[in-house]
């Protein structure tokens, strides 16, 4: 799985190798290259690679673009490499071509200069690696599918990359309880297929499912498209096996639904973004596969006051909850510009008449007749109250996937539109969209597109701004404005993407100083040398 993916990225980057800190990097920063191939499915999947764009701009080294100082960790020596080779024969990679790929994140916004990639297969190997790094004071950057949105999955400097790519075994699946136990490097989509064959589905689903690892999902407390129905990983993860900074293994891989014996330590590691420990195995509660899945894609009437059309979205949501009740499994929205972008960059046609907002409603239940009846009642109500311009319903898998693609592939379409500034915010529902027209007015022609879409049911807006290329001036117009706007409404400046590297300094907009202090203390307790994923998640102490 890894080799082809590496080669695709390697083709798109010029082969910049081990860069000593302070070296100058030629070329413009930012991910502006518009890939010529329109047919690359999201996420980069096993089917073919896009053709090489000539002269793809390099990604600037994080060390160059951002004001970061390398902390006094040791540097990797020949002895270290020999020690690793002894622990993981044949799986210590120093090939510059391979390293070039794993040093850059999916968004092509940050780039480290690690020279070593380690691919352990077992928890024992991870433990040995960390014990060595702890003794030698070597920094480590754990990496799963490298699909994170905040630059948390690649090194900032020369941290050793610890990849879970080869830790992809499913350990057990219990088909009455639906409990799945697997290693952290299992790809989410493959886990999904495995449990689907046995009548279950994974309790989370995201656009990156073809590449992301379950360990990474846990480490980032990924939300996704099924959050509305099945809740957070904090509820569905039953147990974790974690290797701590000093190499000791914390084995909490339970399959119990209820266990109130002592403090729930796994909650510390869920969402800790690889800074408190490395997740090596996960026990998760899967849910029965629904017999009846319906997707309705609706175009909403333009409204009058405030945000034209958004009130209609909220009203539709209210009807949905009332009429569909427990069978509602997803409620996503997107604006007209998102639809234009997926049309232009991915060739996806809009199935309904042009509208200012579109809503995707998914129902999932155990009875076809029961769900159809409820869905029909909801649609009739929405139609007759004049909320909808148009809509379509699908039950066939092919059509369902096609409708979901309109929502799931927006990220891909945006990345082809130019450089993308991404914001992932939790806001009060009534004001969820207001920031978008506000920014459009504020940025004017400096931005190509300002779009809003997201998990309306969870109060989560994905706000994206595209421009020709990265510009410090545009960035300054956006930040801290977006964060202050959010903080003023007591929202979250990172609803589900986490803090990683790119948002490590904004925690203050959503958490009070006392909370941050306690977090630092916990970090100091679990990783006193600070070798796990340094420079990320928490702000550097001044």
């Amino acid at each position, binding site marked *: 799985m890894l080799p082809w993916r590496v080669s695709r990225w390697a083709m798109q980057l010029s082969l910049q190798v081990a860069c000593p800190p302070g070296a100058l990097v030629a070329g413009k920063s930012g991910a502006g290259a518009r890939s010529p191939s329109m047919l690359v499915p999201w996420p980069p999947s096993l089917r073919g690679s896009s053709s090489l764009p000539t002269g793809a701009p390099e990604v600037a080294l994080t060390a160059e673009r951002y004001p970061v100082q390398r902390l006094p960790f040791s540097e990797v020596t020949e002895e270290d490499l020999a020690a690793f080779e002894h622990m993981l024969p044949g799986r210590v990679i120093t090939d510059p071509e391979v390293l070039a790929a794993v040093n850059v994140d999916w968004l092509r916004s940050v780039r480290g200069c690690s020279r070593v990639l380690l691919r352990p297969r077992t928890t024992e190997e991870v433990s040995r690696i960390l014990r060595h790094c702890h003794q030698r004071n070597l920094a480590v950057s754990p990496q799963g599918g490298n699909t994170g949105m905040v630059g948390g999955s690649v090194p900032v400097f020369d941290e050793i990359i610890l990849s879970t790519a080869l830790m992809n075994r499913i350990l057990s699946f219990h088909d009455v309880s639906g409990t799945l136990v697997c290693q952290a490097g299992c790809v989410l989509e493959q886990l999904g297929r495995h449990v689907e064959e046995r009548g279950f589905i994974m309790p989370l689903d995201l656009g990156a499912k073809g590449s992301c690892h379950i360990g990474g999902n846990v480490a980032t407390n990924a939300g996704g498209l099924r959050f509305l129905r099945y809740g957070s990983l904090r509820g569905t993860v039953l147990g974790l096996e974690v290797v701590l900074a000093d190499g000791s293994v914390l084995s909490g891989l339970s399959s119990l639904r209820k266990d109130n014996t002592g403090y729930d330590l796994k909650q510390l590691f869920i969402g800790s973004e690889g800074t408190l420990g490395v997740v090596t195995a996960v026990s998760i509660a899967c849910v029965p596969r629904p*017999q009846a899945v319906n997707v309705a*894609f*609706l175009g909403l009437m333009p409204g009058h006051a405030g945000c034209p059309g958004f009130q209609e979205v909220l009203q539709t949501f209210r009807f949905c909850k009332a009429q569909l009740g427990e069978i509602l499994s997803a409620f996503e929205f997107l604006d007209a510009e998102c639809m234009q972008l997926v049309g232009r960059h991915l060739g996806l*046609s809009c*199935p*309904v008449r042009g509208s200012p907002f579109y809503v995707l409603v998914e129902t999932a239940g155990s009875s076809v007749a029961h769900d159809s009846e409820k869905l029909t009642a909801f*649609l*009739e109500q929405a*139609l007759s109250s004049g909320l*909808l311009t*148009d*809509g*379509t*319903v*699908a*039950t*066939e*898998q*092919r*059509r369902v*996937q096609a409708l979901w693609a309109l929502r799931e592939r927006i990220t891909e379409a945006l990345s082809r539109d130019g450089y993308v500034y991404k914001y992932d915010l939790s806001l009060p529902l009534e004001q969820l969209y207001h920031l978008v027209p506000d920014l459009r007015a504020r940025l004017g022609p400096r931005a190509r597109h300002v779009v809003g879409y997201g998990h309306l049911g969870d109060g989560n807006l994905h706000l994206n701004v595209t421009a020709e290329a990265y510009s410090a001036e545009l960035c300054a117009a956006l930040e801290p404005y977006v964060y202050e706007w959010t903080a003023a409404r007591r929202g979250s400046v990172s609803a589900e993407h986490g803090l990683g590297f790119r948002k490590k300094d904004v925690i203050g907009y959503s958490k009070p100083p006392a909370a941050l202090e306690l977090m630092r203390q916990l970090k100091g307790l679990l990783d006193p040398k600070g070798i796990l994923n340094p420079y990320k998640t928490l702000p550097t102490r001044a």
Partner: protein
Amino acid sequence: MAELRALVAVKRVIDFAVKIRVKPDKTGVVTDGVKHSMNPFCEIAVEEAVRLKEKKLVKEVVAVSCGPTQCQETIRTALAMGADRGIHVEVPAAEADRLGPLQVARVLAKLAEKEKVDLVLLGKQAIDDDCNQTGQMTAGLLDWPQGTFASQLTVEGDKLKVEREIDGGLETLRLKLPAVVTTDLRLNEPRYATLPNIMKAKKKKIEVIKAGDLGVDLTSKISVVSVEDPPQRTAGVKVETTEDLVAKLKEIGRI
């Protein structure tokens, strides 16, 4: 001024996105609890018929399907796309397994005459059996001209111009109506049924009849002996040099 009437045949098949599993007793594939939908080529046929109606070249579009009760869902989809009414030729589930192209063609031929249609539209083949025979047999039984693998369809008075996709490229035929046309992939992109039409479709009529009412005999002279998975592909062997390649080929007796 066309008063043409069109009969569109639609088949309910296992959804294209579903992973097919063979029954352990090898008598067929697992269909219980498996997602079904309209055959993609039949969707294209319905779409073409509805477009002809929108261009006022066809007056009425009748959708027909042969099989058990669930076929009515497929007919409803056709109605939601714009067909005017439906006919369900009811065949009990056990017998439906043995329905082949010849049996369906007999039904369609009888219906075409009974309903006095000018055009019978079908998908070129079904994605479950890949037979690609029903349209051709129907035309044969009716002794009507046929335009198969249609990638373009134009009505010219009492004639039909059909552009066909063939191995060598494209062939254009002119057929005298009434005629049978089977649709290929590039003919059109089927529409999504929109809500108002889905609601309207619930009120459209679906007539339920039996094959016997049409005087059609559904007995088949074909019986399925067994259904099996294709053999597992064994892994290939990589070699480093041409010498190795030659040696390996000799080893397995290929040269």
